[in-house]
C-alpha cells in the first residue's frame, strides 16, 4: 500500500528525472567551440567566449580567423576567389567554412550539430 507521503516522494522523483532531461540534455545546434584545421596538420580548438583574431599558415599563405560574440568566421585568406569569406559568420554547431586553395578549414563544434557536413 502506497501512502500519501510515498506518492509525494515518487512524484518528486519523476519530476526531477523529467527536468534532468530538459536541463542536462545538450542543446541542439548550440556551438561549444570553433575548430581550425590546416592541411599542414595543425589542429586548434578556439573557445567562443573569448574574442580573438588568429592567423594560420596554409599552403599559400595566411588565413585569418576571427571569433567575436560566440561566432566565428574566416576574415581573410590567401586565395583568389575568397569563397570562404562568403560563408560569413558561423553561428550554429556544424556550420563550416573552408579555404581550399590554402588548405584551412573552420568548423563550429557542439554536442548535437545542425549539420554533419555541408555541401560546398
Amino acid at each position, binding site marked *: 500500500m502506497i501512502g500519501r507521503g510515498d506518492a509525494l516522494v515518487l512524484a518528486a522523483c519523476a519530476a526531477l528525472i523529467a527536468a534532468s532531461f530538459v536541463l542536462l540534455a545538450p542543446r541542439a545546434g548550440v556551438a561549444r567551440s570553433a575548430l581550425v584545421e590546416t592541411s599542414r596538420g595543425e589542429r586548434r580548438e578556439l573557445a567562443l567566449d573569448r574574442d580573438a583574431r588568429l592567423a594560420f599558415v596554409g599552403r599559400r599563405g595566411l588565413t585569418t580567423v576571427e571569433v567575436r560574440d560566440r561566432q566565428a568566421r574566416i576574415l581573410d585568406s590567401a586565395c583568389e576567389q575568397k569563397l570562404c569569406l562568403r560563408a560569413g559568420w558561423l553561428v550554429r554547431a556544424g556550420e563550416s567554412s573552408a579555404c581550399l586553395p590554402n588548405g584551412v578549414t573552420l568548423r563550429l563544434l557542439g554536442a548535437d*550539430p545542425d549539420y554533419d557536413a555541408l*555541401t560546398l
Partner: protein
Amino acid sequence: MKRALPLAALALAACTPPLPEHRVQLYALHTLVEVTVLEPDPARARDQLAAVEAALRTAERRYAAWGNGELARANAALAARGEAAVSAELAAALRDARALGERSGWSFDPGIGRMVELWGFHRDQPSPTRPPDPAALAALVARAPSLSDLTIDGGALATANPALWIDLGAYAKGAAVDATLAALRAHGARDALVAAAGDLCALGRRGLRAWRVGIRDPAAGGVLGSLALGDGECVSTSGDYERAFEWQGARYHHLLVPRSGRPTVGLRSVTVVATRGALADAAATAGMVLGTADAVALRALGVVAVLAVRADGTLEVSRAMRSQLTLGDRTRALREVP
C-alpha cells in the same frame, strides 16, 4: 504491456552511449574530403579511414584528365592515334558515364574537355581572367566533341573525333565517394559520412537520427537548409560559384553547356539526391545545363529529388525533395515542381 514496450525501447536507446566519432580531413581530387566514421573499435576505425584514403588516391590517379592520370594518358593517345588501352576499372567508369550522358540527352557530356581547357577551367591555378577567343570556341563547337564519339570494347577505347578529350569532372568525385563507401563497407563500417566538397554519401545513421547535410546558399551565402540522408543515399550540389571570373562586367563560370561551349544560365545551383554518388554528380551538372529543377527532365537518369536555386534567389523544389528538405528560412519564395 504493448504500450510499455516502445517506452522501454526508448529508455534503453537513451541509455546507449553514442558511438565514438572518428573524423579525418584529406585533400584529394583537387578538393577537401571529410570522412566521419562512428566505430567503437579504434583500431578498426583506423583501418577504415586508411581504406578510404587508399580508395581516394586510386580514384585520383584514375580520373585525372590532365597531367599524369590514367585518363590523361588515354586522352593523349586518343588525340594522337584515335585509340587507347585502359584498365577494366576506367573502362567501366567510362561506360557508366557514357550511359548517363545518353540518358540525360547529353546535357551531361564528359566529352567536352577541350572546351573546358579553352576556357582555362582545367587547372586549379591560375584562374582564367577572360573568355576564350570566340572564333576558336566556335571552331571547337563545330567539331561537336562528345562522349558519344567514344567506342569502348573491353579495355580498348577508340574515336574518330580528334576533338574528343574526356573530362570526368562532373562524375569523378561522385564515383570516388562511391568507392570510399564500398571500402568502408568492406572494412565493416556501418555508420559513416563521406563529404567531398559538393558530393556526399551516407552510410547507416548518426546514432538515433539520420545524417544531416547542410546545403550552402549560393545567393545569400550561409546555409539555405538541410537534408536528411538515408543509408546509402548520396547528395550532390553543382553551382556556378565554385569557379568563376569576371570580364568586362560579365561573370563567367566553369559549368559549360556541351552544345554551345558557353557557361550555363538561369540557375545558381542544383542539388540532387540519388542512390549513388556518380549518378548524383552527373545529374546535378545535367540539371545546371537543363536550367530547371523539374525532375521530369532528370527522370530518365532515375533522379527525382531535385532542388534548384534560380538566378533571382528563388527556389525550385521537386516533390520528392520537399519531403527530405528542411529550409532554414521558411518564408523564402519557393516553387514546387513535379
